[in-house]
């Protein structure tokens, strides 16, 4: 299609001694890992944006991000009191239980629900700025981490008011296991956001499906009720509930946070899910990463 006779080469560049193209390089594991690595290197960017998201939400309000803490406190105390009456549980044990359950659930649900929209909601940035896709995912999980840290203030208040020195909970060294538990949880937040993000960008029905499933799973996860009160009644119900992956993550982090005994099988399940999930997410990253900017 070039004009015959008028073809003049672009200054220093030539087409004829154009180096041979590299082997086909779109769908490789290397590119998927490269995306993760380069995204991580831009931590100043997503770190700043994650903060910005939070400040943004409470801009011009007098209390600012303290509202995160306050609304969590109100929900946890309100529902904790209500359900402790319903299940006739004792408040010093049950209130911290519900609080921590809510804090962990908020993190999990935030990663899953917003993860489905992670690329769709960043359409403008994806189409105009060539940044690794992982930047958007890191930003999302970082924002959820910041929410979590704000909510931890409620947890600290609960520990102060109802210290874990009763029958089911004590101050003990295994409480430190909350730190690795949270890291595992955050790692899962990353793969979930990648996987659901890519699929949702292609199929726009996924986010509402995920939204309603998450609402249902909230009730299937021991947050306002306790697994042991159920398992005392029927073994079958407990076995069915154990199929809910969120149950294991909530239990894994909540037990050390409350100073309760750690049940290791939740850690095993969570660990398996982490590995399988990451393999799946990397597979999707490998095959569809380059398609996301076409799909958004």
């Amino acid at each position: 299609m070039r004009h015959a006779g008028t073809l003049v080469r672009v200054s220093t560049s030539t087409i004829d001694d154009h180096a041979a193209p590299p082997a086909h390089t779109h769908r490789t594991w290397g590119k998927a890992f490269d995306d993760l690595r380069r995204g991580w290197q831009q931590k100043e960017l997503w770190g700043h944006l994650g903060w910005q998201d939070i400040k943004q939400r409470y801009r011009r309000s007098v209390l600012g991000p303290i509202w995160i803490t306050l609304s969590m406190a109100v929900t946890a105390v309100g529902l904790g009191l209500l359900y402790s009456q319903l299940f006739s549980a004792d408040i010093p044990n049950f209130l911290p239980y519900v609080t921590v359950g809510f804090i962990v659930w908020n993190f999990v649900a935030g990663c899953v629900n917003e993860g489905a929209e992670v690329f769709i909601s960043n359409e403008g940035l994806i189409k105009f700025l060539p940044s690794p896709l992982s930047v958007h995912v890191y930003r999302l999980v970082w924002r959820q981490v910041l929410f979590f840290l704000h909510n931890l203030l409620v947890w600290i208040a609960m520990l102060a008011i109802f210290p874990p020195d009763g029958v089911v909970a004590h101050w003990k060294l295994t409480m430190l296991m909350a730190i690795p538990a949270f890291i595992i949880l955050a790692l899962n937040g990353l793969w979930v956001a990648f996987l659901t993000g890519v699929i949702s960008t292609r199929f726009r029905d996924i986010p509402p499906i995920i939204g309603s499933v998450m609402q249902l799973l909230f009730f299937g996860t021991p947050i306002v009720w306790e697994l042991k009160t159920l398992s005392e009644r029927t073994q079958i119900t407990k076995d069915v509930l154990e199929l809910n992956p969120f149950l294991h993550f909530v239990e894994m982090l909540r037990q050390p946070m409350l100073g309760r005994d750690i049940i290791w099988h939740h850690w095993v399940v969570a660990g398996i899910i982490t590995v399988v999930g990451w393999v799946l997410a990397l597979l999707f990253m490998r095959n569809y990463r380059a398609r996301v900017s076409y799909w958004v």
Partner: protein
Amino acid sequence: MVSIDVWNASVEFPIFDAKTRSLKKAVLGKAGGKIGTDQKVPVIEALRDINLSIQHGDRIGLVGHNGAGKSTLLRLLSGIYEPTRGDARIIGRVAPVFDLGVGMDPEISGYENIMIRGLFLGMSRREMLKRVNDIAEFSELGNYLSMPLRTYSTGMRVRLALGVVTSIDPEILLLDEGIGAVDAEFMEKARDRLKDLVKRSGLLVFASHSDELLMELCNSVIWMDRGQIKMQGSLRDVLTVYKGRDPFENLPQHVLERIGESR
């Protein structure tokens, strides 16, 4: 050394309407067997068989009618779109300036926007802090910089955005047109900064309809037509064919002197 190489690259956009993008069709479609050709998602071929090799020091202008593929080519060169067929290799840090508004948040102050915009363009926090004063001085926004961006007029926003964009040190600079909406006096100032920026950058690709800007910033031109490269070569040759007349013919003497060309 910065460079961009593209081999036989095509960019094709799948067009999902609300129905084909949904799961329903994908799932039910499999179960119900094929119904004619509507299984296939229609595709728009925005770029076809692009071959390019751009080296350090190249200053390339992109011309072509609306929809000829200039912006898509810029996005291919920036790495936003990986070619659906063919290959592209980009070596160097890309600073894309496609839309002055992207990454700007109306609710936060001018200062904060400078920071975010800079981070998006690949600068670090520290580098941006060093440049804030320079940007403030250039944009002449004064105390407005601590006001939220939504209080700015369009022209003021462009000033801010141009200030940030022209303060960075890009390796690969990709400019799309749309640098307007500023008063003439300011444009004169921006032009100098833009030229400085181009000098600092290792490689420039600039899509524009303005002959004058092309002549000032570029030394060669690619003419895009219907998603393909119709012609590429020196600025004067390509523009002469593209416009049907020598673009340097009617330029006033002082402009010619500035560009360093003769009639």
